[in-house]
């Protein structure tokens, strides 16, 4: 990605994120009271975060690839089951992935 496109991503993301927040503080409550909209809105973070887990952990460009990152993800999953706090989960994943990357 070109350097100018990276600035566009930064500025576009920031402008739209703020607009969405400001919208909530500005519109009458009933505008977003639609129950279908609320059901879908509640599910969007789950769908997007799930997609991001696999897109970041199992994909290179447009191919599904199994590599050291999957070992890191498995370790993160184990840490979450063990009720580890968020920073521990991330560090455990990084250490495991780095080990597999170097040993492989």
């Amino acid at each position, binding site marked *: 990605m070109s350097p100018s496109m990276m600035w566009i991503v930064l500025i576009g993301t920031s402008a739209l994120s703020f607009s969405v927040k400001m919208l*909530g503080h500005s519109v009458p409550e009933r505008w977003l009271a639609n129950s279908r909209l609320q059901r879908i809105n509640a*599910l969007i973070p789950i769908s997007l975060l799930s997609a991001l887990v696999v897109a970041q952990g199992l994909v290179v460009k447009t191919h599904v690839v199994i590599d050291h990152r999957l070992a890191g993800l498995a370790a993160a999953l184990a840490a979450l089951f063990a009720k580890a706090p968020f920073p521990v989960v*991330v560090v455990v994943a990084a250490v495991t992935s780095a080990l597999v990357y170097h040993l492989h």
Partner: protein
Amino acid sequence: MPTSLKDTFRDALSVSLTVGVYGIAFGAASVAAGFSVLQSCLFSLLTFTGASQFAAVGVVASGGAGASAIAAATMLGTRNALYGIQMAPLLQVRGFRRVMAAQITIDESTGVALSQAPRGSEAMRAGFWLTGAGVFLFWNIFTLLGAVGAKALGNPASWGLDAAVPAAFLGLLWPRLETMFLRLVGAASMVFALLVTPWLPAGLPIIATVAVAVVVGWRPR
């Protein structure tokens, strides 16, 4: 500070510090995706909504188009609009104070505000402002530390940073999977994203997964 608000202050501080530390992971992920330290810090100052920031740099890291990155981040942030609708009648602010309130309307400030309901609306307002300001402060400090640290480390794969990003998403997703139904939605989304990966340009499978949320949420259960 009145003694009655001491408990609210303690709640706000503990949430701010805990969440703020995650900023290290964002700063590192952002630099690993190719953003500069300055750009990483601007993300945390201007975008200031964690999951969206991770999504934007995540899509860029996976080779997706700029529009995909912006769209994924914006859709992840739509819940902040619903938080704003709940917070606006409580805060009753206008002008610049409303702009500040909007910028710090995130999961944590709304969550602490709502949790203070038994202590009264003054405590709820205090919870919102203290948590929002606290997370803003710590999130930005730790973003800088993470970005500078990752810059010094070099090759992201060598230090496991390329696995730390999906692990961070998993960590953000985990507490949301409260019911079996929501776990199934998550699993279906993962399968869907992997299935469409070979057929769509990089980054688009992430946004396409919103279709799962729309289809599942269309009718009441």
